[in-house]
């Protein structure tokens, strides 16, 4: 901001195209950045490079075939995206899920949350410059993905959720393998905290960078860890408990200022809370059936089902008309809102901080473009 006042030096606006193919592996997204000197003046977000038309595809397939497509929306946190749709359909049909099914859903969701936050961690630290932590995060995520493969048969695009329960039961001795994997992750989590929180380079790159006050975050429609980092304590698992969350004991980490450091802190603390939840659930899971027969297709009506995704509120509005195919499915993606609100919050930051800020927003291009 002082550059314009320097005598004898003119500053012109420069438009930089941070193009669709860039080395940090978020996906193809185009940012057209207008810079004056070193300060960002305007950003235009260009999306649509992997727009697949999933909302239109949902009108052409029936209710059994759709969850298979939906976990490819955000492929790093696939379980949540199936769960939202199944929840919306169950609300229209008023279907009941047996107890063991609910607890299995909790275990699947929390393991996916740990995996999603670990891959965010790898990508973010690679953006900030700590290249060594990139394979560390992926190494830990591989152990969690092995557990999810034991549960559902697939590493990334699980077809695990059904209307009325889940598809498979836990294999034998699952809690032995789970305990080993979770201890492995927890041990390394302490190491990550030591590396990050005492590192002056990391602190200089994240503290007080792009702070967002709570009122602005609410007005823009943020949800999830981004809203909690600005100080608003809202979490669907605590406010309107679904699945088996009302029987579980966990805390909700909240930040203070809403800058990049707070967003990193909230996500790392959430990994710890998820580990806690999985341990409790594995001890207390009841035995019994895990799936019920439900109607083939719901009666006419509207349902809005949303779950607390690792990025925010992942919601599905399903409009059904009594035929085996839905009439309209609206997919509400949290990362779309966060990434599209970059122009509203980034004015005044420096161009060198662009990737750190973008990384802390946790974009996943599959769900943004749908």
């Amino acid at each position, binding site marked *: 901001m002082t550059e314009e006042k320097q005598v004898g030096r003119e500053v012109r606006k420069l438009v930089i195209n941070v193009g669709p193919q860039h080395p940090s592996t978020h996906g193809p997204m185009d940012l057209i950045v207008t810079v004056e000197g070193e300060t960002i003046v305007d950003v235009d977000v260009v999306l649509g490079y992997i727009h697949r038309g999933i909302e239109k595809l949902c009108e052409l397939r029936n209710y059994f075939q759709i969850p298979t497509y939906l976990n490819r929306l955000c492929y790093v946190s696939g379980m949540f995206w199936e769960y939202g749709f199944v929840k919306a359909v169950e609300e229209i049909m008023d279907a009941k899920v047996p107890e063991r099914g609910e607890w299995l859903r909790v275990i699947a969701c929390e393991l996916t949350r740990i995996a999603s936050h670990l891959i965010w961690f790898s990508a973010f630290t690679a953006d900030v410059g700590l290249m060594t932590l990139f394979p560390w995060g992926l190494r830990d995520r591989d152990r969690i993905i092995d557990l999810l493969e034991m549960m559902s048969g697939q590493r990334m695009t699980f077809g695990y959720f059904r209307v009325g329960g889940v598809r498979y039961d836990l294999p034998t001795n699952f809690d032995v393998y789970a305990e080993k994997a979770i201890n492995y992750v927890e041990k390394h989590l302490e190491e990550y905290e030591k590396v990050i929180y005492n590192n002056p380079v990391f602190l200089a790159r994240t503290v007080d960078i792009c702070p967002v006050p709570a009122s602005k975050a*609410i007005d823009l429609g943020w949800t999830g860890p981004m809203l909690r980092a600005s100080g608003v304590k809202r979490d669907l698992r605590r406010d309107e408990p679904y699945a088996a969350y009302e029987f579980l004991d966990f805390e909700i980490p909240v930040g203070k200022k809403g800058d990049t450091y707070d967003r990193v802190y909230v996500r790392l603390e959430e990994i710890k809370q998820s580990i806690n939840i999985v341990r409790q659930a594995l001890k207390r899971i009841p035995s019994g059936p895990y799936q019920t027969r439900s109607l083939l297709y719901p009666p006419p009506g509207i349902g809005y089902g949303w779950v607390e995704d690792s990025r925010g509120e992942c919601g599905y509005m399903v409009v059904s008309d009594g035929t085996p195919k839905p009439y309209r499915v609206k997919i509400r993606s949290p990362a779309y809102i966060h990434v599209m609100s970059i122009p509203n919050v980034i004015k005044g930051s420096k161009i060198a901080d662009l990737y750190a800020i973008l990384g802390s927003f946790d974009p996943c291009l599959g769900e943004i473009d749908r």
Partner: protein
Amino acid sequence: MSEQLNKLKEILPYAEIYKIYKNKYYAKIPKDKWHDAARRLKEAGYVLLSAVTAVDRLNSMEVMFICRRLEANGLVIVGTLIDRNDPRIPSLVSVWEGAHFHERETFDLMGVYFEGNPDLRRILLPPHWVGHPLRKDYKW
């Protein structure tokens, strides 16, 4: 909860309110009260906007927005019917800043024109695309 139902009847006296599930309601309002309903809901505590979207009913277009409360639980879907051949409706950007992104996507995929939106252009499809894919009569 019926206390949310009573509260909604106070906030929107001109709406017909149906219940979807436990504390989710659907309110049907006349077309010219669109901006007014949004403003009243925001002042009454429904500050979190979830989505602004549209459904193609074949002889009209139904536009709806979904908002939630912050201090307590509760969700309301507010819907209205507009003309399908010339779909125009006032924009909600002056009420919630985050409505801008939803309206751009609805314009792109459904063709609903929001008056008052500062920058209404296509976002998910290339700028030279012709047609609005999510309409029921779209052929490709």
